[in-house]
């Protein structure tokens, strides 16, 4: 933990509140009074049942959503400034691939937007596809790939731009268990190589414990932060750790925060 703190704070969230209007014109408090810091290079999860404001929190960090109250500061700047510097990588729940582009061209898209030269783009896309194990599929089209492979392309694309902060919204929740475990290992490997900050949204306790340094437990109605749990499993994480007593304890501890917080 102290090791994390030594690296310094990257994202500061203060008294954050987001209120939506529903169709009847009533206010819906998606988030209220959220306060916490995210450290540089940390893998942090936002965990909670559906509707507790996880997506809203992630979108607010990415400047896809304006806060109604409070502030988000990233290295002292506003989310908008960071977004305009193209430092975010956002992985949506759906892969959001472009059907008319090959896998490789999909990975190259943000690099095109950033005016990188053709050779640089091509080289970087090859590297990324190699990293996610899709080297042999670069000329395929998204519809020729399975859901898991599409999500790999999505991840390759997100890491391709060398983002300072990677925001992932339930990227694996639509995948089967086997694919999910494989992608967990891949994601941790890539994260270790790149050392970026990852904010990972999930509603799956095991997934959060396996991947994260810390877990922010959110509760609904209104969405708020109810606890932060440190995950002290050693790194690199291996699948065998899921069988360890410490893993089970942590899952149990996190589950306790839920029942305490929301019922």
């Amino acid at each position: 933990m102290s090791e994390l703190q030594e690296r310094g704070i990257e994202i500061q969230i203060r008294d954050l509140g987001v209120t939506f209007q529903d169709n009847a014109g009533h206010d819906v408090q998606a988030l209220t009074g959220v306060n916490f810091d995210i450290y540089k290079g940390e893998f942090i999860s936002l965990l909670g049942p559906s509707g507790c404001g996880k997506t809203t929190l992630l979108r607010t960090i990415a400047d896809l959503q304006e806060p109604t109250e409070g502030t988000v500061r990233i290295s002292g700047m506003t989310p908008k400034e960071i977004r305009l510097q193209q430092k975010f990588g956002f992985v949506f729940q759906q892969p959001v691939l472009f059907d008319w582009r090959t896998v490789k061209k999909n990975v190259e898209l943000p690099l095109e937007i950033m005016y990188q030269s053709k050779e640089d783009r091509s080289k970087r896309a090859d590297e990324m596809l190699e990293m996610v194990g899709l080297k042999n599929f670069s000329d395929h089209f998204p519809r020729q790939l399975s859901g898991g492979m599409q999500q790999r392309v999505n991840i390759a694309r997100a890491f391709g731009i060398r983002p300072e902060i990677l925001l992932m919204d339930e990227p694996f929740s639509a995948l089967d268990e086997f694919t999910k475990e494989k992608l967990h290992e891949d994601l941790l490997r890539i994260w270790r190589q790149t050392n970026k900050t990852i904010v990972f949204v999930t509603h799956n306790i095991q997934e959060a414990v396996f991947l994260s340094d810390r877990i922010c437990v959110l509760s609904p109605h209104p969405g708020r932060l109810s606890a932060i749990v440190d995950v002290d499993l050693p790194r690199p994480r291996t699948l065998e750790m899921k069988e360890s007593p410490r893993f089970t304890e942590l899952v149990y501890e996190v589950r306790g925060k839920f029942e305490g917080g929301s019922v």
Partner: protein
Amino acid sequence: MKKIHKIFDHKWASTLLWIVLIIVAWEIAATVVAANNRSPENILPHLYQILAAVFSTSKVSQGMTAVMVVLTSAKATILRALAGFLLGITAGFFLALVMKLSGLLEKMLFPYLMLIQLIPVLGLAPIILAITGDINSSRVIIAAVLSFYPVATNTLAGFKSVDQDKYDLMYTYAAKQRTIYTKVLIPSAIPYFFTGTKIGAPMAITASILVDTLQGDGGLGCILSQSLRHAMSIYVFWLIVFFSAFVGILSTYLMTWIEALISPEKRGIRKARREYKKSAVSQKVSVCPQISIRRRKAE
């Protein structure tokens, strides 16, 4: 039952069935007409009579056979249809783009676009002729007006089919408005644009033929009305009916073909097939590659 379903999985099987059904129905009707009328060829001749007219060497007009007459006048009509069609789809595409760029313009224009579609061609033609004062440009304009509408509405639907996730993704990259159009919106609208052209192409041809009938200076419609007034063999009329149906269908297929030619996905798949075939030949394997495209499940 299952077997029948399987047979009709092949497109050609159902096409063949339809052709056979139409021939049978036509011949039954022609037999009935022949039994009850003195000049049945004016109402419904037998198909073999029409076929005979195709190969007939008798001259129907100015030393030309029926087929020659049709093909000569077809050239003028099809060229006008083509000019109008190209004009119409270009205008349709850009209007859709402008409506997408300006929501206000869409609100003001879109409901009235349909009105264009509601005015009958034959009503529209004299008005446009009065405005332009030139029959040839009126023909082109009317073909343009008719192909314009399906292209404009379909392309606009294409722009609107882009879901929020894609906009959000581009937003996180801080992409410029122009980039969003060139890299996301326009490529997404291309298949919709082609749907529009597939509807518009035969309409441009029909319009062109219809407008020909207004004034007699060449063109299929002009010959068609002469034939109907018995200034020329009635079989010229029947030849034109079949010829224009054929050209109409062909024009739609042409659009499908052009779409496949430029679609990066189909190009990629063709390339993969070719390469597979090459490697299969070198390995003396004769299995056909199964490169399948999974369609996204309709939600």
